[in-house]
């Protein structure tokens, strides 16, 4: 077995050397099959979409914070959606909310986060030349790109983009009579999502295959960095749940275009009774949330994986409870599939189901709690270096706690009766999945930028970016808890129609101002990113003095990652500050036999075995060399 894998790597290396010379602009930057470039493509596309998604939220925050404002100055951009008096159109308000959600959840936090780092890090951290199928990987990006183009076009339709909320519940999303966005806008939404699902599946299959099959010698599952564990489990969740969203969308397409009645029944609209009977809107909700809830973990797990890596490295300490972290993630993965109906406590489904899903939902809080305690213990008695990535990771843990705890309210069906679809929910998921995942994304960019572009990002700008964003996010989303407890419903264009909600105009204004400042602060990052790409300080090979394999590649790794042999792995990735060792880190490629001074008793026993294996390898290598000559 060992012989075979070494031989394979050897020939692969030679193949890739040949390829490199034939790369032209198109194959290197556009239709590339190099996982590193595909990762960067995902990152840049994700950043583009994050700016669009963020900008849309600023538009509706203007409406919510300053309902009296004259928005005529936006007319060059929004045209007819601003009426003669300078007010935003209420239908377009819903479209803005819908597109903000869709873009952020799918394009930014799924593709931009998981797509970027799964692609970029999996081969580098497990010691592989590339993904299992470079071609499928390329397809995955370009399906995502097409999906984005279609969604982007839908923003400019005369009838507007989809406007039924990012969950696009039928009948609203099925009937053009109900809202204009459910016409062509919704059709494009469905087509775009179909491409997106195909893209996710192509990517996911690749991630799973690569992690299982292409790990380098010695890289057992129990030596995988937690990032890889997170990406691996994320891919499994995606692979099992995205097809269900596809099924839901397909049935919706049938209802919209071919007169079926999967979701439609007993509808009288626009002065006529529709012929559909026997369908159930609740069926759609079940199907949607069967993806929709795992989706939360699809965006969150990669962020948690990145954080584990960054916190361990910059605490100069092993991550506390490596095995417990893996078991928690496994637990979250499995449980994520059986909690979906907690989004539907008051949807009219059988209350008995509500009881079951309440029990299951609150179980999932346990592994999440374990993860938080493990992060805290990792920080405890560490030697903390506050790189921007470390700051964002600590910020993530804070959001994960704040947003996670409010989940305990919402997962309790009795309490959820009042809080469901209020701003409490908005506060909850923006903290726990939106901001936490976004901070994971940022931590990842700051941490792996030197590997991606061979240069350092400016740390000071990173600090400013972090503090503005961290404080900003709390100022935006923390007040929403109060608004939510007061019962303010979501997706409201204005609250002045109701006495119970005719207050907190000051707080809403405050939230909007905070949102604008936070959004503007992101341009510090954009500047830092592009400026550092060309003019940043040259990076050293291992700037964070980290243990994982990606830092053993050259400064500008070519297609194939390592110019010579792929390094062999001899230890887990978290040997930081090991007692007896001279440096405060021991990379995974350092054999145990080379560090007798710091080996733990059980490791000392492994040394003998390790030496035997190394000797065998040596022989194989010599044999190979002689064959080539």
């Amino acid at each position, binding site marked *: 077995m060992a012989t075979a894998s070494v031989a394979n790597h050897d020939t692969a290396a030679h193949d890739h050397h040949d390829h490199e010379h034939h790369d032209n602009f198109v194959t290197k930057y556009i239709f590339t099959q190099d996982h590193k470039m595909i990762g960067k493509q995902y990152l840049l596309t994700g950043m583009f979409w994050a700016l669009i998604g963020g900008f849309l939220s600023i538009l509706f925050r203007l409406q919510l914070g300053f309902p009296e404002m004259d928005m005529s100055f936006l007319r060059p951009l929004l045209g007819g959606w601003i009426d003669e008096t300078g007010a935003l159109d209420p239908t377009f308000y819903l479209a803005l909310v819908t597109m903000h959600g869709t873009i952020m959840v799918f394009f930014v936090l799924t593709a931009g986060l998981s797509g970027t780092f799964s692609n970029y890090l999996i081969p580098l951290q497990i010691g592989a030349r590339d993904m299992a199928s470079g071609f499928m990987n390329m397809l995955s990006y370009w399906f995502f790109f097409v999906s984005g183009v279609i969604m982007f076009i839908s923003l400019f339709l005369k009838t507007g983009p989809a406007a039924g909320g990012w969950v696009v*519940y039928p*009948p609203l999303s099925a009937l053009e009579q109900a809202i204009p966005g459910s016409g062509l806008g919704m059709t494009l939404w469905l087509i775009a999502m179909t491409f997106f699902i195909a893209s996710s599946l192509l990517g996911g299959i690749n991630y799973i295959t690569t992690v299982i099959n292409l790990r380098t010698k010695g890289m057992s599952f129990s030596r995988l960095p937690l990032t890889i564990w997170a990406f691996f489990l994320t891919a499994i969740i995606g692979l099992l749940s995205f097809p269900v969203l596809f099924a839901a969308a397909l049935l919706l397409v049938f209802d919209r275009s071919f007169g079926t009645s999967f979701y439609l029944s007993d509808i009288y609209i626009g002065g006529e*009774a529709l012929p559909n009977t026997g369908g159930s809107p609740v069926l759609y909700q079940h199907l949607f949330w069967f993806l929709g809830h795992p989706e939360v973990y699809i965006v969150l797990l990669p962020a948690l994986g990145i954080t584990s890596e960054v916190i361990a490295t910059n605490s*100069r300490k092993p991550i506390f409870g490596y095995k417990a972290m893996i078991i928690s993630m496994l637990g979250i993965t499995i449980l994520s599939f059986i909690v979906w109906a907690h989004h539907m406590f008051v949807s009219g489904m059988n209350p008995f189901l509500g009881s079951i899903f309440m029990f299951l939902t609150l179980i999932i809080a346990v592994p999440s709690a374990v993860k938080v305690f493990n992060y*805290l213990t990792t920080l405890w008695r560490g*030697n903390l270096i506050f790189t921007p990535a470390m*700051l964002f990771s600590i910020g993530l843990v804070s959001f994960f706690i704040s947003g996670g705890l409010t989940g305990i309210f919402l997962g309790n069906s009795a309490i959820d009766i009042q809080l469901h679809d209020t701003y409490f929910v908005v506060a909850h998921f923006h903290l726990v999945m939106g901001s936490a995942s976004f901070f994971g994304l940022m931590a990842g960019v700051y941490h792996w930028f030197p590997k991606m572009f061979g240069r350092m990002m400016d740390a000071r700008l990173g600090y400013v970016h972090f503090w503005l964003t961290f404080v900003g996010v709390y100022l935006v989303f923390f007040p929403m808890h109060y608004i939510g407890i007061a019962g303010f419903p979501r997706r409201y264009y204005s609250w002045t129609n109701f006495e*119970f909600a005719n207050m907190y105009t000051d707080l809403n204004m405050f939230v909007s101002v905070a949102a604008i400042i936070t959004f503007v602060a992101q341009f510090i990052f954009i500047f830092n990113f592009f400026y550092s790409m060309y003019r940043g300080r040259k990076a050293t090979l291992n700037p964070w003095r980290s243990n994982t394999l990606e830092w053993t590649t050259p400064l500008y790794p070519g297609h194939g990652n390592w110019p010579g042999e792929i390094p062999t792995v001899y230890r887990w990735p978290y040997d930081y500050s090991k007692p007896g060792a001279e440096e405060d880190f021991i990379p995974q490629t350092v054999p145990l036999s080379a560090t007798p001074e710091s080996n733990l008793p059980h490791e000392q026993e492994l040394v003998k075995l390790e030496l035997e294996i190394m000797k065998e390898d040596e022989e194989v290598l010599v044999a190979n060399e002689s064959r080539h000559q």
Partner: protein
Amino acid sequence: MYGFLIGVGVLLLLSIIWMVYRIQTLVSVVKGSDKKVASGSNKINAILFLVFLVGGGALMFWYSIKEFDNYQLPIASEHGAVTDQLFWVTMAVTGSVFLITHILLFIFPYKYQYDEKRKASFYPDNNKLEIIWTIVPGIVLAGLVISGWMAWSDITAPAPEEAHVVEIMGYQFAWEVRYPGTDNVLGDYDYRLITASNSHGIDFTDKNSIDDFSSPVVVIPKGEPVLFKIRARDVLHSVFAPHMRLKMDAVPGMPTRFWFVPTKTTAEMREELGDPEFQYEIACTEVCGRGHFSMRKIIEVIEPEAYQKWMAEQKSFIQMNPSLAEGLPAETKELAEIELNK
């Protein structure tokens, strides 16, 4: 002119920031601090975490206490008292976890900031600890779940026989209300029967529908069980009565229900709040289109005696519009005529 001046000002500001940034970078290169593992910024960031902890914490406590009466809506139903109590118990539990974890999360960065002379302690795992902090949250959560489950079961149990029935139907963009009349049984309906004069689609061949009537506001008695039968005519809506702690989706093709016991009349609540204008309200909480934010309905809670009196005064659909009785089969026609002659 102002636009031009503002533009120049912004440009100036940006170029100053740019200069400061460049000078900073060059100074740090000269000092060699970019070669160090952790520069002076490490300490600043550590201190900022403490500042954030204290500042953010103070802001949170100050606002939570100051605004309590504003965001805590008065309760006007029996089960509302239960769910609110659950809410505040959960708040106490999660609030303490929130505080403890955040104090640790922000104090550790200060306490354990980088020091060249120190080495972090190698502490990779401790199974005992892991087991403790798996089991303890498990037990706490079990407590919360079980109390929540008991409340949920009570709330969603079938309504008592004698509950006063009110049908609430959502459509774009309003609610319509139907009462079952003296027999306390709502007549059948079919969405295909909806016309301009029969917006509920009531089937008047069903004799239970003869005495059904409508009302512009939802009138219900205090202290007696009330059953909302909820349905939708076009898209999803959701009945949300914040003071009643009541929420249930209105689904086309699938009637839903929610029963509760109101505990305070509108008049009592007005007195309690010192607000003579106060009204109980229903809002829509499931996005339903352009007018989603304007689906307001008023609930009026009155004393049971006044409720009986009010019921007796109401005019049925047939009385309001005798043409509805036209073309009915003989048996129901007779009932309709009796109703008309009341």
